[in-house]
């Protein structure tokens, strides 16, 4: 095997407005081969795969599957040709069952009835063969993230795909779940399936792929067989320079500014709440919160940000127990909150920069008085942020939806940092930003630490956590690990904690 070419992309180019997302990208995948598509966030990987899968139409270039050209912009044709895709954000309907999700669209729309018994048997057979255990009658909404991914993969296998695209499949998995996924994938390639594995995690790419192609700024910048390369060479290709972790001076921690004492919150659906969490954020220190997505980070961010109050336990702020706890209380107590989703929660898209700049502090001097807004001062504030934080925009009256993600994030940074916060809650602050913006945001966090702020950095990117944090806690299923000082644990050891190992079973947290 390995000689038949399953897939070929010919000079794919795609532009969004002025941005060239893909620039004449060409590569091929052989049958039974795993090709990793490597690149930073925003390098154009997802766009390329959406073109391959017919969800976008390329401006130029063609896609061939087993020598047959695919009609552009037609997902149906891609599916019929045997291309399947597991999206980073799963395309599953929560209120439907596993079986319903798998069989959706698999039979002709107007056939008189669903062949439910047949489907059931087939799903059972596939689960067995590829070690993908799922219960066909479970509601998808009740499944864990790992289980949902299994449903997505089954969905593809159910359709007899010959080429499977996996978009960042490990972002939501623990290291151990990742190993299980890799076992499944090896089983699949042994059966002649070709796989495109999209990732920016180098060690995983080395572990699973036969070959790597690297995308940077929409261009194909290189490729190699994994046996002929190493992670450092790949990183150099991906970033365009030798990767240099930020040079972080040792911290000088001071008093605890914000403490959680034995805090618990209820689970919300499949999202775990906090389980007796105690944590102290100290002046002049960055605490990193590592963990697989969906393990209680949201609950932690909500509690610290004032959106949720503890069901049990207390929040202690500057030595005093907090009574009333709303987002406004949090802001007024000097907590700077950088939200996880800057588009949905951080900003109001149709508001201009001025209106977004005062969003947390419009109530009260200097931005309003007696219920009347002072637009002059508000605008001045926005213009100061634009200047100091180098927000690239036509002006303070531009709707913020017209700004790039990086500039949007700079406005949010300015909004919260200009208030001279004591505590900074940074939830995924660099997700989706380009390298320049990433460095800028990290620099600002380090600078705030230097000024004596207590920082909590929540991230799913272990590299980011390890580079910036003075102390690392791992969160798994809402439980918090003890704090590990910089360099105390290797990534592999932290991975075990992320998988839920090491937590004391009886006392659900360690301090």
């Amino acid at each position: 095997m390995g000689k038949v070419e399953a897939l070929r992309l010919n000079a794919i180019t795609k532009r969004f407005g002025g941005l060239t997302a893909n620039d004449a990208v060409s590569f091929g995948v052989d049958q039974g081969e795993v090709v990793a598509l490597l690149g930073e966030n925003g390098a154009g990987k997802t766009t390329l795969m959406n073109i391959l899968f017919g969800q976008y139409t390329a401006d130029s270039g063609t896609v061939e599957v087993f020598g047959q050209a695919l009609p552009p912009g037609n997902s149906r044709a891609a599916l019929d040709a045997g291309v399947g895709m597991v999206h980073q954000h799963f395309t599953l309907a929560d209120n439907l069952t596993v079986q319903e999700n798998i069989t959706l669209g698999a039979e002709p729309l107007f056939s008189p009835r669903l062949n439910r018994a047949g489907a059931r048997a087939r799903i059972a057979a596939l689960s067995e063969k590829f070690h993908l255990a799922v219960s066909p009658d479970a509601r998808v909404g009740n499944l864990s993230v790992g289980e949902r991914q299994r449903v997505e993969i089954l969905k593809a296998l159910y359709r007899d795909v010959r080429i499977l695209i996996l978009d960042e499949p490990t972002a939501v998995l623990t290291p151990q779940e990742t190993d299980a996924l890799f076992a499944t994938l090896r089983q699949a390639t042994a059966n002649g399936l070709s796989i495109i594995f999209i990732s920016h995690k180098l060690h995983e790419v080395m572990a699973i792929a036969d070959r790597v192609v690297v995308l940077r700024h929409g261009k194909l910048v290189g490729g190699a067989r994994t046996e002929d390369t190493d992670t450092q060479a790949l990183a150099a290709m991906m970033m365009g320079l030798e990767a240099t972790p930020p040079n972080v001076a040792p911290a000088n921690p001071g008093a605890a500014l914000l403490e959680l004492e034995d805090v618990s919150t209820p689970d919300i659906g499949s999202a775990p709440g906090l389980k007796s969490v105690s944590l102290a954020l100290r002046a002049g220190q960055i605490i990193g919160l590592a963990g697989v997505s969906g393990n209680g980070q949201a609950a932690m961010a909500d509690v610290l940000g004032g959106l949720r109050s503890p069901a049990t336990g207390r929040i202690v702020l500057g030595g005093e127990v907090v009574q009333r706890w709303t987002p406004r209380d949090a802001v007024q107590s000097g907590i700077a909150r950088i939200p996880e989703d800057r588009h949905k929660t951080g900003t109001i898209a149709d508001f201009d920069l001025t209106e977004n700049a005062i969003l947390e502090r419009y109530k009260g001097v200097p931005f309003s008085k007696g219920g009347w807004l002072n637009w002059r001062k508000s605008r001045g504030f926005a213009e100061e942020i634009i200047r100091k934080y180098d927000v690239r925009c036509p002006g303070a009256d531009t709707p913020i939806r017209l700004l790039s993600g990086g500039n949007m994030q700079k406005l949010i940074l300015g909004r919260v940092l200009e208030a001279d916060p004591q505590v900074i809650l940074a939830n995924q602050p660099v997700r989706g930003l380009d390298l320049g913006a990433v460095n800028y945001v990290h620099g600002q966090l380090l600078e705030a630490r230097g000024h004596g702020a207590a920082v909590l950095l929540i991230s799913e990117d272990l590299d980011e956590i390890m580079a910036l944090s003075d102390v690392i806690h791992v969160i798994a299923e809402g439980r918090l690990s003890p704090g590990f000082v910089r360099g105390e644990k290797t990534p592999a050891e932290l991975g075990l904690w992320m998988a839920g190992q090491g937590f004391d079973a009886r006392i659900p947290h360690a301090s």
Partner: protein
Amino acid sequence: MRLEPVQNPSLARKVLPPAIALAFTVLIASLLAMIAGANPFSVLGLIIKGAFGSKFAMLETLNRATPLIFTGLAVAVAFRARFWNIGAEAQLYAGALMTVLLGTGFLPWPSLALLPAIAFISILAGAALLLIPALLKTRFGVDEVVTTLLFNFIFLLFISMLLEGPLKDPMSMGWPKSARLLPEARLPRIVEGLRLHWGFALAILSALCIWIIQTRSTLGYEMRAVGLNKEAAAFAGIPVNLVLIKTALLSGGLAALAGFSEVAGLKGSLTLDLSPGFGYTGIIVAMLALLNPLGVVLAALFVAGIFVGADSMSRAADVPTYLADIMLATALLLMVLAIMLTRFRVVRD
């Protein structure tokens, strides 16, 4: 096909779609007039003449616009915060009811004290009526569209019950009609001899106030933030539910003023046909005004003009007056489409 936002819309893109929408509305009205066997040009001419062709017609249009400004403002305020108040009709009657209750002898005050008192109590009544759906929404998550719609039916039956019971005017010879207001409780005319009452001035003043509130006050800012992105507003610390309730109170109060103004300014008593659907028409007014309070005044004049013009046209030509409603419904649907097309481009793929 799919939609792509336009970054910097050209002037043509901003102006053309709404213009085409209006042209289409006129075209459809003409076709319908032809179906009715009339000459479309004369029908349109009669509508315009009937609405704006004489001093009498103008005054009639202004009078008809007055309640529409109030209900239009009520809807514009609510929709701005994405609170779907479809119950302006009921709130209008709540205001009218208070006007009749207080203005037929209950408060023996002079005009200058009585009228503000009645207006104030009317506002409270309208606000209170909308408070119920608002609380059902914020407490239980019950969709306010359906509850406010259903409240219209309930409240009109309630009014009907009162008009056939305790509020019935003994002199009305069996008609369900309230007693007439005392002269002190009537809104005087702005200019003696011209059939236009102070309710119109109050409507314009309200529009100005709402405009100032929306653009200058923290409440207006909060209402816009909640309407545009509830999640971000809540994250930033805006008390979303409280803002929705304040919005509802303001909206209900404005709609109630329409009832106050109609009874105290025009009709002098309460009957079941006080409003020919002003509450519902307020939605059209607000949408045509793009929810802008000052635009509401213009849109109300336009809508009132079509109604008044169509009434007079219907008497002259043999075309049913429902033509006006069709024109407005068409204008509404085409306008929301047109506004969208000023901001998005349709891309084929």
